[in-house]
């Protein structure tokens, strides 16, 4: 079912409203950004078609599950699955499905919680499609932290070289760029992490070819564990 432009905008603003309402533990707004296939589609093709599932990333240490569940429920989504840490019960992934007639035909939303693992952030999902919250095996992919978590120096350096338009879309505290969708300065925003070019290189080699990029994100390494106890041991 083709999604109308009006419905597409409605979905975008709903998700934006949900995510922008979340509060960070450290005070202020939560850092969040579009990730994986959603991120690739936008960066490589300049579209946010909603033809694919929507992927969003937040940082693991933010205790926002309750806020997320409430927010998505308010806007017509239900929690349809999760992958959790078998030691703490905290989510690595929450899978929301549209549950209201006004969202018929629109994609599911996956929230990935990026787990801090030394100099890296790692992420996982229901890789083996078991449908269980505690999978038989956890398979984590890896992204260097420096690409997601710029220093103040990185951000200030970027601001110095930016145009006024670029400066307006860079959050000085988080380093997240909030590009505008559809029209310049529109209310519809597409947050991406600071070093988005580096992330594209890592996860989607050849991204600049801008063809229909099939397949999952690549990773520098894959971490496989049976229990998150092993993560906590190997971890930092």
């Amino acid at each position, binding site marked *: 079912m083709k999604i109308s432009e009006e419905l597409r905008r409605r979905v975008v603003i709903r998700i934006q409203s949900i995510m922008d309402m979340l509060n960070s533990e450290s005070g202020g707004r939560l850092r969040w950004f579009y990730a994986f296939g959603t991120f690739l589609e936008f960066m490589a093709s300049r579209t946010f078609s909603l033809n694919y599932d929507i992927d969003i990333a937040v940082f693991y240490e933010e205790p926002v599950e309750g806020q997320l569940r409430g927010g998505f429920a308010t806007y017509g989504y239900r929690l349809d699955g999760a992958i959790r840490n078998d030691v703490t019960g905290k989510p690595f992934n929450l899978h929301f499905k549209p549950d209201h007639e006004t969202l018929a035909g629109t994609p599911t939303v996956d929230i990935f919680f990026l787990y801090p693992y030394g100099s890296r952030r790692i992420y996982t999902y229901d890789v083996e499609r078991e449908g269980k919250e505690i999978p038989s095996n956890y398979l984590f992919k890896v992204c260097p932290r420096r690409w997601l978590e710029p220093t103040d120096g990185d951000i200030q350096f970027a601001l110095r070289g930016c145009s006024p*338009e*670029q400066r307006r879309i860079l959050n000085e505290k988080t380093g997240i760029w909030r590009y505008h969708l559809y029209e310049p300065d529109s209310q519809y925003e597409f947050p991406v992490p600071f070093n988005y*070019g580096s992330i594209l*290189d890592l996860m989607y080699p050849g991204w600049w*070819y801008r063809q229909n990029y099939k397949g999952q994100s690549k990773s520098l390494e894959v971490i496989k564990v049976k229990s998150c106890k092993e993560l906590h041991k190997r971890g930092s």
Partner: protein
Amino acid sequence: MAYFNFERKTLAIQDMKVMHQAAKEVGIADYLFVSFGLLLGICREHDFIGHDNDIDMCVLADKITKDQEDQYYAKLTAAGMFQAREEVTRRKDTGRITWFSLRKRANRSKFCHWFCFEWNGYLWHTKAGRWVKQTKFQRDHLKFEDTDEAILQGTPADYVYPLQEAKFKDMTVRIPALPGAVLDWCYPGWWLPKSGGSSSHRVLCRVPRWNDTTRWSINVSTP
């Protein structure tokens, strides 16, 4: 106003093909690659950047000999590529080229070639002594003397090596291994077009004397 119309793009591609052919004939084609503004255009727009009238090519100077460099220059000269513009900078110690700028005719694009080399984990490019001036780099950013022989600008070498092939128009060109990382480094916020400007001066190196690397000093920009 956009510089690149259809005719200029066509001519620019013709000129790039001449350069690539010359590079192939002298055996340096594997070390000639696209970077800076042209890399940004390829990755972001699959095209030249509209306002960019100065197209950047790079050469891995460490991988080629001085003879090859001279032969490449001679072939471009013979092909008339320097007719409307010819500027060169060289290292004072070896006479090796660090940069040149060419233009075949007034109605065609300027091209510059940066002859890059690796040192201390970075790939460096420079206009040698031409860059030793306040208007290019502020002294509060890098402490340098008017008598210095060069200021270099660096990109992490592992963002560039190994070069890879990419299709551009009807050509195959070489680009850095991690083009996105290079763009993040050189042009923060690159996905949103911005008119004008040069690559960021994130890492600079002061070269008092080319032939004395013990005196070279790297400065990493911290606002």
